[in-house]
Every structure is written in C-alpha cells, then in structure tokens.
C-alpha cells in the first residue's frame, strides 16, 4: 500500500504520515515514509511518501504506484497525480492556498480531478474550521476521510490510537472532532 500526501509547507503532512506509519506499526506491518524537510517547508510544495508492507526498497513512491493520494490543497493534489495508480483513490481538500506568485482558481483543479478519477473524495476545510475553530486539524480530517472510504487499511479508531501515541493528550483530544468529521457527514 502506497499513500502519497501532497500539500503546502506548514499544513501538517509530516504529522499525518507519522500517524499512518504508527497505524502500520501497531498492526505489525513493515513501513517506510519519506518527508520534505528544509527550505521547501517554508510555504512551498511538499510531499510525504508512506509505503506499507514488505517489498518497498525506495523510500519514495515511484510514479504511477500510489494507491491513494491525499491532497491537502487542490493544486498540490493535481501536481502529484502522476504518482497515482490507474484507479487509485484521491482524497482532497477543496480549499485553495494561494501562492505568492499569483492567485489561481481551485475550482479548475477540482473539476479536473473529477474528470480524471471516478472516486475523488472532497473534504471541505470550512467544515473543519466550523467544528474545530481552526484550519490546523485539516490533516486529521483528511485522514478521517481516507479511513471512511474503507480502502485505507486503517479505521478511524486505528487512527485515534495512533494520535494518542504520537501527539500530546491535549492536542489529540482537540483534533478528535476533525477525525470523526467524515463519518459524521456521511
């Protein structure tokens, strides 16, 4: 199982990939992840690669090998589409983050995603803001939505356990409503 997380530096892709890896560890599965750290973290395009199961040598997912693409931002999801397997699943936040090089229209990206995949799941960051009072837990909400597809290999309660292992008790508690969001909106 290869999961690619694509977003903008500062959106919390690193924590999300850590949580997925923790879920895999809890199930006794082999896991490799790779992160973008450094200069690109400052508001640039970032990706996290999560590879679960034996037989993965490269820390990075090869092109056209991702079973799931979790897009934290519409244009970043489209940028990483070449990594998605044919018939792979896309989970994407609909809220655009405007680059300083010029604004773009997120709707163009979302309609493109609709045409090239059958199974795109859209997560509205405004729902996260409404429920949690902040956009920060978007990373957790996206994981919740990925689990809700039933194809992540982990359930919401697996993720909750990982959150309690990896985050402070206070942070985990504050982020739980975001995790439950996808199930609640079903």
């Amino acid at each position, binding site marked *: 199982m290869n999961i690619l997380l694509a977003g903008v530096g500062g959106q919390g892709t690193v924590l999300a990939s850590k949580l997925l890896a923790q879920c895999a560890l809890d199930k006794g599965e082999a896991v490799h*992840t790779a992160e973008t750290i450094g200069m690109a973290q400052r508001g640039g395009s970032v990706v996290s690669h999560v590879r679960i199961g034996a037989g993965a040598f490269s820390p990075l997912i090869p092109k056209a090998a991702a079973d799931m693409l979790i897009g934290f931002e519409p244009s970043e999801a489209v940028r990483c589409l070449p990594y998605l397997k044919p018939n792979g699943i896309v989970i994407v936040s609909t809220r655009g983050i405007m680059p300083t090089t010029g604004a*773009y*229209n997120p709707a163009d990206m979302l309609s493109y995603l609709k045409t090239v995949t059958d199974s795109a799941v859209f997560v509205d960051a405004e729902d996260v803001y409404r429920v949690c009072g902040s956009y920060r837990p978007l990373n957790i909400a996206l994981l919740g939505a990925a689990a809700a597809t039933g194809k992540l290999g982990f359930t919401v309660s697996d993720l909750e356990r990982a959150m309690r292992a990896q985050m402070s008790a206070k942070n985990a508690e504050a982020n739980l409503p975001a995790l439950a969001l996808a199930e609640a909106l079903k």
Partner: protein
Amino acid sequence: MSIRLLMGNGAIAEGALAAGVTVATGYPGTPSTEILETIAKIRDKNVYVEWSVNEKAALEVAAGASYAGHRTLVTMKQVGLNVASDPLMSLAYIGVKGGMVVVVADDPGPISSQTEQDTRTFARYSKLPIFDPASPEEAYAMIRDAFDYSEKYSTPVLFRPTTRLSHANAAIDATDERDVRQPEGFVKDPKWVIFPRLSYAAHKAIEERNPAIGEDFSSYRFNTIEGNTSANGTRLGIATGGVSYAYTREALQILGADCRILKIATPYPFPETLAARFLNEVDTVLVLEELDPVIERELIYLCGKLDKSVKILGKGTRHTITSGENSVETVTEQLASFLNCQLSTVNCQLSPPSLPIRPPVLCAGCPHRASFYAVKKAMHGKKAIFSGDIGCYTLGNAQPLDMVDTCLCMGAGITLAQGLSRAEPDATVFAFVGDSTFFASGMTGVVNAVYNKHDMVLVVLDNRITAMTGGQTHPGIGKTLMNEPVPPLNIPAILTAFGITPRVVNPLDHKAAVAAVNEAAAESGVRAIVFEYPCVNVAKPTGCASVDADKCIACGKCVRELGCPALSIDNGQLTIDNQDEKRRVTIDKSLCTGCGLCAQMCPTGAIAEVSE
C-alpha cells in the same frame, strides 16, 4: 529491543547512543539536524550534547573528548564540512583514542543546500575511511561498525547519509541498551601535538594503513555481491551504493529483472579485493551512484591496475546523470536500457490545468519580510547593493521583495559587502545576517570591517532562533541544547564592544524601521541596525488582520509589494461566481499572524489588525 518508527537521522542517533557515545556535537544544517536533536531528547544523563557555534568548533570539542577516550559523534551538513575541514585534515594525521564518527549529510539535488559536493570525495582527499549507508535500517547498524573501525584504526571516520535516507522513516528494531565504556582519560603524550616531523611520519603510516583498511572492508558485512548474472549469457553487472542501491532494487523489481550487483558501503578505502571478484564475473558494469563518480573511478582504476578488460559505464560515458539526484524513475530507465528490458509506460492522462508555481517563501508574519521591506522603501531610488547570507532570509531574494543580491556561504555576506563597497564606492552596501549565522561566522567579518575601515551597513535580522533548520538554539537564546539556562550573548552589546553602536528596532514598526535605515544610510563607516522580533514559529500570533470591504479598492499594493502568503486578491476565485462583486483583498486566516505590516502600508487604511 522494540520496533519503532525512526527517521534515518533518528536511527543514526539511536545507533550511536547504543554504541556508547558520550559526547555529541554539531551545528544545524539540513539534512543532518535531527540527529543531534534526537540525542538531546533521548540521551541518558551521562551523555553530553551541544549545538556548537559552528562545525569547526563542534569537531574540535569532540576531538578533545576522543583524545581522552570517549566515543564521540559530530554532525553537520556537507557544506559544514568545509568549515570543519581545517581541524579534520590535521586530525586525520593525529588520530583519536575514543571512537569518533563525523556524520556529514550530503544533499543530492540539491534540495536545501548551496552545493552538490560529495563527502565520499572528501574522504579520499582527507584519507579518512567513510561509511555510506543504503537505508535507515542499515544506518542504524552501520553507525556502531563505524565506531568500532574508528577505534580499531585510531582514526576519525566519516559517515555519509544523504537527504533521502536522513529524512526517510523506517520501522527499526532498536535497543534501549547502551554500551558502557570506561574512558581511560587524557594521557599526555607528544603524539597529540602536530609538528612537521610528526606529520611526515603520520602521513607515511596513513598510506600504509589505508590499503589494509580497504582489505578489511572487502569482508565488511554491508559490502556485498548479490543477484545473478543474466540467463542469456550476457555478463552484465551493476555497481551501486547509498540510496541508489535501494532505487536499483526497486527498479529491478519493476522491470522483473535480475542482475549481479556490487554494493559498496565503504567507498574509501575501496574494498578492492571484493570488487576484483565482481569484475571477474562481468564484462560490462553500469555504475549507479549520486554526485561524483566515486565507485565508477575506483572500478576504472582497478581495471587498469589488474589489467582487466571490463567496460565501466556511468557518468563518464553519460549513461547516467552527472548532477542532481537519482530516483526510481531515472534508475529504472537506465537499467531498462542497460539490461535491454521492456519499460511499460503509463498512459498519459488528460492534460492538467496549468499549475501555480509554489516556491518556498518567507512565512506570513515573518519579521524578515518587514525588515527587507523597510530597507527597500528607505533605499528606493538610491544606489544600493544588498548582500545576503544563509538562512530563511535568503528567501528575501524572491519577488516581490528582491532584496538579496548576493549569497555565497555562511557569514560571507558581511565580508562580500566590504569588497563590494570598495569596488562601488558610490553605492550604499548592506549586509544582512541572521542571529545564528552572526555567531557561527559573522562576527569575524564584522571585526574585519571595523579594523580595515570599510564602509557598510550591517543589518542583523535577529529572530531569536536558528529558523531555517527548524528552530535550534544558539548563543543568543539563553538556553543550551540540553535545556540548561545560560546568560544569552547580546548582539547589540557585542557590536558596541566592536566599536559600532547599533540602532535596535522592531521591524514590524514600519515607520521606525525606515527611519533607522535612512539614518544609517546617511552615515559612513561601519554602521549597524539590529532588527529584533521573534520568528513566527517562536512567538504566538498576536491576532489576525481583517479587510474592510468598503474601504479596500483592490489596488493590490499589499499583495504586490509584500509577497505575504496570507494575502491574495479575491482568494483566486474571481473567475467563478463573483465576477460582479467588488474585488477586494482576502486574508487567509489560517496563515495570518497579525503582524500588522499590511495594515501599516495600505493606502486606504482598509486593513486593520484584530487582536485575538
């Protein structure tokens, strides 16, 4: 033992602690930073760890402890090795008593660096053994071997992860047990004092020793020959090392192919006996490695030395890339052609809409933006040169700020400015330097400016942290890596002691900041401004700006001049459904920190700071 998810850098830290490291030093630099941070987090009380002021200091502190028999670890990025090379070159002659491993993280790409230099080449130059792990799992085991070899041959050794390994995570079975050693202590002996006569003897000993280490490495557990020569009678082989080995295995899996592989984990001294055995089995070799053709040249040399007729393909023959990083894709393509395999291509999808360009930028609320903007406004229309340095503030080179005209290496901005002002006497030359860089290698440059009566404006961007690498402490913070309080070194006081009285200003007070720049620019000699305001990752946001839709005329001045990621016009959605609505500036409230810079420069007063 317990299976834990460890980052490559974390694995190196855990492995080093398990091997009994008691002194660890380093200077932050991507992709090496997390090694020392991990040690600081999980160390026992008997382990000493520090962020040294720079890499040279780090190496020397560790060497002193190694002289007394302690196992020591030093960490840095590849360009940090340039700073530490003075002590390292001599230490190679002097040697050590306690095992000493110098971890130098290389950055093929480069992803976050000034150069693509290859530490394996530095190993040959300094005549020091080097270890080149292929995965986080291997790094965990190999770091212990590195200490053992260091002690066996009484020499510091280099250990070289690359970005993709340092920042990859793997489930690793790591022990909590620590080797306990009883260091002998420092024993006085003339051998610790470098002198020309001693150096000659040491050099001779090194030249005799290194072939022996190469021989030792021929049976080292991570130098291997594996895989099968192809069934169709062609005698093809692959030679590889580091993360390229992982790419090779993945590519062979994708291609459904097999091949004889020579995996080199110790590029210097080269394991010639093992390599000779491999060369006996093949007619043609493709070398897959990143940066310099190190393995490639060793094999070509060995073919000449042993009079073997084996074709060595790689960078020299342009079968592989000579710069940038490898990937599964590049390696798969090269192997498909080398092994004559069919490479299935993925069908092209509908062509995507044009994607926005998203380069790294200064964060919303970053005080550096305000500092650059103040200097830019003050110097508008005047002849000025802006010399930059290494840190987050290098990003001030991007549009629309465009305030970094030069950037070379740590600390160079200050001294470059001095040369520039001699050559361009009618220009006002500014040198921007961050607080951590000021301590690392900026101070001597300021002394040079004062002593030699240069003409420049030093601008210290003091954001109270080493920001670019993720928030490390430094001598100005008041806290060590082990979380001990220490009196902070005060930059304005240091400058005053140098004979320069700086203007100390909050850059978020735009008027005061511009006034300070104007005053400094009007003077001559060495002048200094210290812009003090903490990094947004240190200070809590003070609030969030809001736009009065009635007052905003969508002139776009804030968006156009500040380049703040929290500002855009209509959030990019003008073209969909709000075309008839009045255009206005939008603040992304997930990013805005309430720094108030946009509010101060808005010509219609449409932006207000709303405190939380």
